């Protein structure tokens, strides 16, 4: 395993008495794709959203433990949560363009982080759309509302938007589950290219997808970490009988 980029230590999360994540300790390697797998309701999304503290938006959430990104614990008091989130691009399950034009969707992040110069913004928009291989499809309609794009294009727009804030990490919460197979394929291809520059954490409940993408795998079951390790080991020589049953398709 290459050196860890994110290190989670004894993380516990509960919502209004419901214990969702139980004492999770694991490492996420740098510049690889780590997939979080497990049946629905096992805490995959909560784990992902703990990393950029999006779980803060939920009322009545309680967290203990540490999520270290580099040397910073994102849950430390006195940490500016916007700094944490700026380091992490987030792609949600359903495409969620903002109520503005395609151009402004991408420029939104850089603008709030202080880039005002039009020429610089133009460059960022073009570069990010190209990286998300959307540029050719939208270059002539940048001022049109982003909601006019197809679902597949919207999700690539969300990827481009995430890249525009120059993050170190990409957090993906089942980003292809609402897409047709061709659009899903586009996103997967881009992530495989992007992993040379970014640490990618990818939540999925589609085992075949995890097998296509993963370098490193985390298997959660009912809020507990069952197994983590390199993809080949977890998929083909799992040490825990529950992992073995899950990857063989006995349940889930």
């Amino acid at each position, binding site marked *: 395993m290459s050196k860890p980029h994110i290190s989670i230590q004894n993380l516990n999360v509960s919502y209004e008495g419901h214990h969702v994540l139980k004492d999770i300790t694991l490492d996420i390697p740098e510049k690889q794709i780590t997939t979080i797998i497990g049946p629905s309701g096992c805490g995959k999304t909560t784990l992902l959203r703990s990393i950029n503290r*999006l779980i803060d938006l939920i009322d009545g959430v309680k967290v203990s433990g540490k999520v270290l990104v580099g040397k910073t614990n994102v849950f430390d008091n006195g940490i500016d949560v916007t700094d944490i989130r700026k380091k992490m691009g987030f792609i949600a399950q359903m495409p*969620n363009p903002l109520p503005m034009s395609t151009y402004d969707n991408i420029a939104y992040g850089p603008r709030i982080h202080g880039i005002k110069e039009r020429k610089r913004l133009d460059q960022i928009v073009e570069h990010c759309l190209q990286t998300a291989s959307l540029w050719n499809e939208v270059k002539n309609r940048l001022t049109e*509302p982003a909601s006019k794009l197809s679902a597949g294009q919207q999700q690539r727009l969300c990827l481009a938007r995430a890249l525009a804030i120059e993050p170190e990490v990409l957090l993906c919460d089942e980003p292809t589950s609402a897409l047709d197979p061709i659009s899903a394929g586009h996103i997967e291809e881009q992530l495989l290219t992007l992993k040379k520059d970014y640490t990618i954490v990818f939540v999925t409940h589609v085992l075949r997808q995890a097998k296509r993408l993963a370098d490193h795998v985390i298997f959660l079951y009912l809020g507990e970490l069952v197994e983590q390790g390199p993809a080949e080991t977890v998929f083909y020589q799992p040490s825990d009988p529950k992992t073995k049953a899950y990857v063989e398709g006995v349940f889930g």
Partner: protein
Amino acid sequence: MDKRKLEENFYKILMIGSTLIIVGSLVSILIVVLFKGALALSISMLTQTPKGGYYLGKEGGILNAIIGSLYLAGGATFIAFITSLPTALYLNEYAGRSKLAIFTRQSLDILWSVPSIIYGVFGFTIMVYLGLRASLLGGIIALALLELPIMVRVMDEVMKMVPLKLKEASYALGATKLETTLNVITRQALPGVLMAILLAVGRAVGDAASILFTAGYSDAIPGSLFDPAASLPLAVFFQLGTPFPEVQQRAYASGFILLVIVLSLSIASRLLTKRFMRYVIK
């Protein structure tokens, strides 16, 4: 015909019937007002102030009331808007489920149903206390109070419907609460905000009771905020109260002008809303 099909048709007819009653009422109001006021309608109605003594005048027009109403509604809407938008944003994005938020919403709902004469009397009492006489400013403040609960509560309901996924998208990019509120929530809720303004203006421009004591009446166009101001609803009220048929006819004409102003405001804001709908995420 089987029972379910019969049922389907019965309720469909019921719905169409109700809709027709509503549309029909609007059309018949317009027809009656136009029919009764037609003889008094003329260009001079729109371009002149009353002549031949006070608002009972049989000559001249009601320009004083048209301008007065526009000033009153415009000023009140401006004041109500700049206080409503921050209040609605605060209730939705900052106050959460706090006691203050619950209390504020409850108060606004009560204020919404307070009869407008109460706002008028309240405004008048304050003005007497301060030694002010009936004036444009007094009317504007009374109408702003009348508009506030409508604006805040409509905006509030619209902002509640902004999907969480949009806020999440903004926060995930490292936006602060204020940035998310101003750039995302306000944009998404914009058509609804316009609707809130329209509803409030509609109530303000047609209200007579709240400005009866606060704005007063005058046959001149107000020259400053401290002059009394005429208004269309009061013009209708006073003209209709006279024993002279010619003046009563002018009341219908004034009513018709008021209706046309409200309708054009409504149509204009509908067109505007359509433009702003472009970027809204459905």
